[in-house]
């Protein structure tokens, strides 16, 4: 039972971590928290099942298509819901615009795909047990994403430009960096990461439109606890959250697990609003 708690917990936790990274990538580029993170995760599963099971496409083609859809949705998110409200970011209208957009996509999914959870195809037939893809696929996706992001940020010019925008958008613009283009690119990247999260975790979470709200919240918890913008915090927090949830589910039951996560979330936010690993921000007078 211990093994199944850990493997299952780490798998779900890796999905949370990836959704957390999705939040972070969008936040770094625009100082905006976007409710589309959970939507991307939900769609990764639904679109994967659609392309591979329903349409019968090869796995790799299905994955590429899912990532492409995620990227397109990311760009649409940036253009429709983020850019128009960036001018007055202190009014935080992005909370509502991104939520509205995410809900629209969720409802379209509910109407065309249905409101029942459908199974996600088995892609690589090994297992059962620990070798089962449903356990290692999310972890692999998470590891690939982190290594990929590190390489992108450290080794490539565009990655450094991302970092520059995240550090100081104003100065980056003064240096002649194309802020708008980089922001769109970041949202496309976030779209792919979010879709990958849903795709890799869909055998556990199923292809289900209701995953959106769950992923939105549980993907945000590690970001809030780890400090916004910190991918390391998101990964550690996400994995810990996944294992804790599974352990509590098995040992004390689902009610306690849900309430405990929420309680920890509130308490940490109250004691350390900037997150356990984040830095305090300056005053505003």
């Amino acid at each position, binding site marked *: 039972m211990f093994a199944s708690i850990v493997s299952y917990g780490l798998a779900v936790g890796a999905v949370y971590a990836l959704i957390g990274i999705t939040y972070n990538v969008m936040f770094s580029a625009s100082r905006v928290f976007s409710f589309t993170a959970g939507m991307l995760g939900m769609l990764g599963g639904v679109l994967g099942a659609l392309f591979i099971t329903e349409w019968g496409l090869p796995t790799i083609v299905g994955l590429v298509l899912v990532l492409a859809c995620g990227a397109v949705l990311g760009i649409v998110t940036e253009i429709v819901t983020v850019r128009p409200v960036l001018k007055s970011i202190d009014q*935080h209208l992005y*909370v509502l615009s991104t939520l*509205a*957009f995410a809900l629209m996509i969720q*409802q379209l999914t509910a109407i065309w795909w249905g409101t029942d959870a459908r199974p996600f195809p088995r892609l690589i037939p090994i297992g059962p047990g620990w070798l089962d893809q449903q356990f290692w696929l999310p972890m692999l996706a998470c590891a690939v994403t982190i290594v990929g992001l590190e390489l992108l940020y450290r080794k490539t010019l565009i990655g450094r430009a991302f970092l520059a925008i995240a550090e100081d958008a104003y100065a980056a613009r003064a240096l002649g960096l194309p802020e708008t283009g980089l922001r769109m690119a970041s949202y496309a990247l976030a779209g792919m990461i979010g879709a990958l999260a849903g795709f890799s975790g869909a055998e556990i979470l199923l292809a289900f439109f209701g995953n959106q*709200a769950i992923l939105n919240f549980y993907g945000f918890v590690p970001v809030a606890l780890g400090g916004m913008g910190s991918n390391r915090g998101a990964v550690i927090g996400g994995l810990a959250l996944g294992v804790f949830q599974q352990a509590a589910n098995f040992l004390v039951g*689902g009610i306690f697990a849900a309430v405990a996560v929420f309680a920890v979330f509130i308490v940490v*936010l*109250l004691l350390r609003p900037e997150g356990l690993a984040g830095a305090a921000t300056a005053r505003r007078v």
Partner: protein
Amino acid sequence: MTDATASGPVRVGERSLLGKLEGSVSWILLGLVGLLLPLLDDSYIGVIAQRAYIYWILSAGLNLVVGYAGQIAIGWVSMLTLGAYTTAALTAGTATDPWHPYLALIAGGVIGAAAGVIVGLPALRLRTFYFAMTTLGFATIVTQVALAWKSVTGGGVGTPGPVFPWPFDPGWGFYYFCFILAALATWMTANIASSRFGRALVAIRDAEVAAEASGIAKPRLLIAVFLFAGALGGVAGGLFASLQSYITPDAFTFEISVLFFIAILIGGRGSILGPALGTIILTALPEFAAPLVQWSTFLYAALLLVIVLVIPGGIADLLDYKNRRPLEQHREIVPRPDLLGRVLGGDGRSRGKSTIALRDIELHFGGVRAIDGLDLEVRSGEVHGLIGPNGSGKTTTLNVISGYYRPNAGQMTLDGAELPFALPHARAGYRISRTFQTPRLVGAASVLENVMIGGTVHGHGTFTESILALPRHRRDERHLKAAALQALATVGLESLAQVRADRLQHSELRFIEIARALMLKPAFLLLDEPAAGLSAEEIRRLGNLIKASSREGVGVLLVEHHADLIFDICDRVTVLNLGKTLAAGTPNEIRSHREVVSAYLGA
């Protein structure tokens, strides 16, 4: 140079179209329709109306949270869920002995109030997305618990809703129950909205720093509002469970939350009639568009997106004709320093002498020593000028005194007793008030309301008294309004009392800030570059006003770049450079101080 402006075209007491509507006619009409609706004897319409009343009971409270305090509580449907299950489970006796339905309904309200505070806790320190996410997460979790706690909630199968006995038994009795409670909720939220608490909420939303300087303690106020809004949500839930007659977790979809939200946004922030009409329309609409039922959430979401992107101010802004009418072009500000005595209360000479003293104050920002061992005294009845080049620490000093920065070392005393560091909202209690380098006003509120915010701490009534419009609340309102008009007359802007603050020009905003600061009846007045952006004539009048207030016994600390103003009106001047005192003394001494002249004033 005449007094033509004082009798300008903007009349005091003028009210907008929406204001008039909101005042009475619309509410009476709505009430009559509600009262007489049972005459139709159409139970289908009755059910729709009951649902609208129930939704409005929740939205009315949520409106204070969202529309007034500006907190994005998107998951407030969780209060409906909690109230519904509490009332249903207690009545059915699945968790305890069966309760009387009316008592169970009250319990639903209590649970809702408690949940409102818990969900609201993060909002006390953080705003916006974190709070939005907390409410959303809470909604998710409440549904999960409702599904999992089968013995009490019936899980996915559900549980029967309460049936209220006579006099509000199912049918038109229950209809009137919902109607009465909806009317009560409207009345109570309207009372809060028009009280000093309502203005304080709006101040927190749009000018949080100024709200603190006016002595508004954000946590206490928000907790009260979350309690109230949660309780209304819980009661709405209990009624909802009875109306549904059988509840399952599916009944509490996120769609309902979006509906509440759109109703408030469409109606416009800071309005009550708008959101009420929005709730009624959005509740009724799907009933008349049956083929669209499947699409209703999608359409709600699309509507939300359109509102946010196209008319973030809501319909109330579109209808706000009053603020379309042009103001007079060449307005003049003619302060009346002779009124100061009345505004400040009593005879200036009778007020005691007091002193704020700073000793060896040091403040570092990282490696930068913004203030480096500063001594300073501000005495009542004196104007103390603080000058120096940019970055010399003038505004920083003012922020230390008013509690926005916590110094790393040093002492600060008021008449010998320690004046605690930080705690900006506590300064109003010491009667220390201030203005800001960039005026911080609530653009959407009228000038009069902005000024009234400055007197928030002088109210005596409690939040509960304001909800119920008890005598102390009404007396507070009368006094605050009279005092605010007096303060506006003193700075020469009473003719603009009813105008939205965001329509005024820069110099007027500066004087409004002074009026707001005067509302505190301050012993000390800290002015941060009040003359910036003013014309020469306005600066002269400002100088007279400041001088007059010091003659009334107020101790003024004046941060300024206009050397003429400083030397005209200051009793003493301190010159800062790099966080240290370069020179201190009378204006004449400073004017001839060699280092000051070479470093700052120029030859």
